């Protein structure tokens, strides 16, 4: 029943540096890149002295004055990881790397080829020991249970429900899953303050109450404590570091056309790498160094990540044609930013992913046409629950998959308002100016509307007074009036009580 094998190489930076040679005296691996040296891994004698990863070198030296410090070697660590991956690849093709020092194998279906799972775990340990790598294995029916078992050194969990086997483990074991998207280490401390000492106690917490207090992170911890999984096992490749593709041209290129073959070659190579690594281009930056005229820059961010080199080349070609470099090109650098491509489940009636991509592409083209790079003038309005008129925000347009038919228009509704943005100021000539003229009803006043002949207000309804946000600079306090002019038109006026002025809010149509 044990399906997942978790492999943990403890203190991987130290094992990479020591090369399998154990020492009787304390040894530390120190990261020297920051402002102060920090311990990143220790050997067992140093751990017995209380030195742990994360301590500063000064703190570690106080505990172990005779300790040997070695500088961290990222290249050796990478070699060790590749060696581990090659070793585990013999046992299952479904291997999930959990950087920096853990791996997870799905052994389903491999028993018929390689024997029982327990034997496979023993063979993994033996093969690693032959290479001088010390590791711990955990076998369990679920991924979370396998990881916890590897961390705690549990024997293989053979039952279908791993909760009973995990129950006696201390709460701190949850910190082994700290790189799974939740800060489990912080939650462990909280659980300990609540008086929970074991995973069994965490697993017994009521989920609703836990979610109310800790949100989704609390539910994750409870699920892990019960050894439950959710989601698929996907191969995890670390994202490639952003490094530019650079090239110097000698002699300098006259014009941008000779640059295109180099761009095409680079983009094709990159696309092949993205294909292998399951990545897609989410952004592109081209920098050209010009002969005596500074630099030329262009950024391109496709609406959706993709890995089509022809489309990317066409974008760069268009940008170069629109703004050609002003001088010969002496060097070029191409930066790419990659993401995982989006995956959506196809439907019976069509390809939802394709439709969404088409919609994103349409919106991107509309935003370019309407000179709206921020997306504030091309989208769907969402009303805000404010008394302030014209209170809405623009959100990306994502219509319902299953739209409801248009609601019936309620009877007796007011006509639609055509809003004036920004509201133009008005001048009202009152027939007889009372003491508080601005606050008086505009009925009977002569209204000077912008670009129209003055009209007399025949009737007025109001005022509707509202105010808000007096604690900010965006405070408002206004009286709104619906007015009917002698010519028959109806408008909404507002009197701004802070500015003591009248404005035209809109016209009813």
């Amino acid at each position, binding site marked *: 029943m044990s399906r997942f094998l978790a492999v943990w190489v403890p203190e991987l930076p130290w094992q990479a540096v020591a090369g399998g040679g154990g020492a009787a005296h304390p040894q530390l691996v120190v990261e020297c890149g920051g402002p102060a040296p920090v311990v990143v891994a220790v050997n067992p004698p140093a751990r017995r002295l209380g030195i742990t990863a994360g301590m500063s070198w000064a703190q570690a030296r106080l505990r172990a004055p005779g300790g040997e410090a070695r500088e961290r070697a990222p290249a050796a660590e990478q070699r060790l990881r590749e060696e581990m991956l090659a070793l585990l690849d013999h046992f299952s093709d479904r291997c999930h790397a959990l950087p920096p020092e853990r791996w997870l194998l799905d052994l389903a279906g491999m028993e018929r080829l390689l024997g029982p799972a327990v034997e496979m775990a023993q063979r993994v340990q033996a093969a690693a020991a032959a290479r001088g790598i010390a590791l711990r294995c955990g076998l369990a029916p679920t991924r979370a249970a396998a990881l916890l078992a590897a961390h705690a050194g549990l024997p293989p969990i053979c039952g279908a429900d791993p909760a009973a086997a995990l129950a006696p483990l201390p709460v701190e074991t949850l910190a082994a899953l700290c790189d799974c998207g939740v800060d489990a280490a912080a939650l462990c401390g909280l659980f300990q303050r609540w008086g929970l000492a074991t995973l069994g106690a965490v697993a017994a917490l009521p989920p609703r109450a836990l979610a109310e207090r800790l949100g989704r992170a609390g539910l994750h911890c409870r699920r892990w404590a019960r050894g439950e999984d959710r989601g698929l096992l996907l191969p995890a490749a670390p994202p490639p570091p952003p490094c530019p593709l650079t090239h110097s041209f000698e002699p300098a290129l006259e014009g941008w056309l000779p640059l295109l073959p180099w761009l095409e070659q680079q983009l094709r190579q990159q696309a092949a790498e993205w294909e292998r690594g399951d990545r897609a281009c989410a952004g592109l930056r081209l920098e050209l160094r010009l002969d005596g005229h500074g630099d030329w820059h262009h950024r391109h961010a496709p609406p959706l990540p993709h890995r089509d080199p022809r489309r990317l080349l066409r974008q760069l070609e268009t940008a170069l044609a629109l703004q050609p470099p002003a001088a010969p090109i002496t060097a070029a650098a191409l930066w790419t930013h990659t993401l995982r491509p989006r995956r959506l489940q196809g439907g019976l009636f069509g390809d939802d992913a394709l439709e969404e991509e088409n919609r994103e592409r349409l919106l991107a083209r*509309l935003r370019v046409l309407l000179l709206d790079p921020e997306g504030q003038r091309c989208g769907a309005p969402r009303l805000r629950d404010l008394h302030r008129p*014209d209170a809405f925000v623009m959100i990306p347009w994502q219509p319902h998959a299953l739209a409801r038919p248009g609601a019936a228009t309620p009877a007796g509704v007011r006509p639609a308002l*055509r809003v004036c943005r920004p509201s133009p100021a008005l001048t009202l000539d009152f027939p007889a100016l009372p003491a508080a003229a601005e606050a008086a009803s505009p009925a009977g006043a002569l209204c000077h509307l912008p670009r129209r002949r003055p009209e007399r207000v025949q009737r007025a309804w109001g005022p509707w007074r509202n105010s808000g946000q007096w604690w900010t600079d965006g405070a408002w306090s206004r009286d709104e009036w619906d007015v009917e002019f002698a010519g028959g038109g109806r408008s909404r006026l507002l009197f701004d009580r802070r500015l003591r002025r009248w404005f035209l809010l809109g016209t009813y149509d």
Partner: protein
Amino acid sequence: MSVREQLEAGLRARGWGASLERRGQATSGLREWAGAPGGRLTRHALQWAAAGERIAWADPCDRFDPASAQRLGMDLQQLLWLRGDPARAELRGLPGLSRWNETLNLLIQSGAVERIVADFLDWPAEEMRRIPRSAWFRLQRGLEQGGRTEMLLLTPVPVAGICAAGRHAPGRALASPEARRA
């Protein structure tokens, strides 16, 4: 849910809801309602658009009021609101009209919406008259070829000529075929 209901739901999800209501009869085309602001054209247009499932409201003068639209039954999540910026020179005058024409063509060709309202009621009438007739023919041809989109043009004066199926002259009742039948 029966197979027929599942099919209908799926077709509605793909934007073919109006075709279902029409029993497959294609009624896509260009309508034009002309009149001065105050003639309740906006209200009629909102009601017409609210009956659609995916709506685009081209608003070159930025006069659309979302609260009014919601009061008149429009589902704002289904609405793609394209707001013009009258303060920008590129979106004013004849260059601005050219951009909006291109925008409408793009919307029609995409087939992403079922009903489009182009609100040019506050655009200067003399500039609207300078739009060549070929531009309206191009829009009409796109609507007919797509077969899924209907478009309503709100203008201060009639400009689309014979390209428009239904018209509404100022001071008169709605002259669209549906209104006449009603």
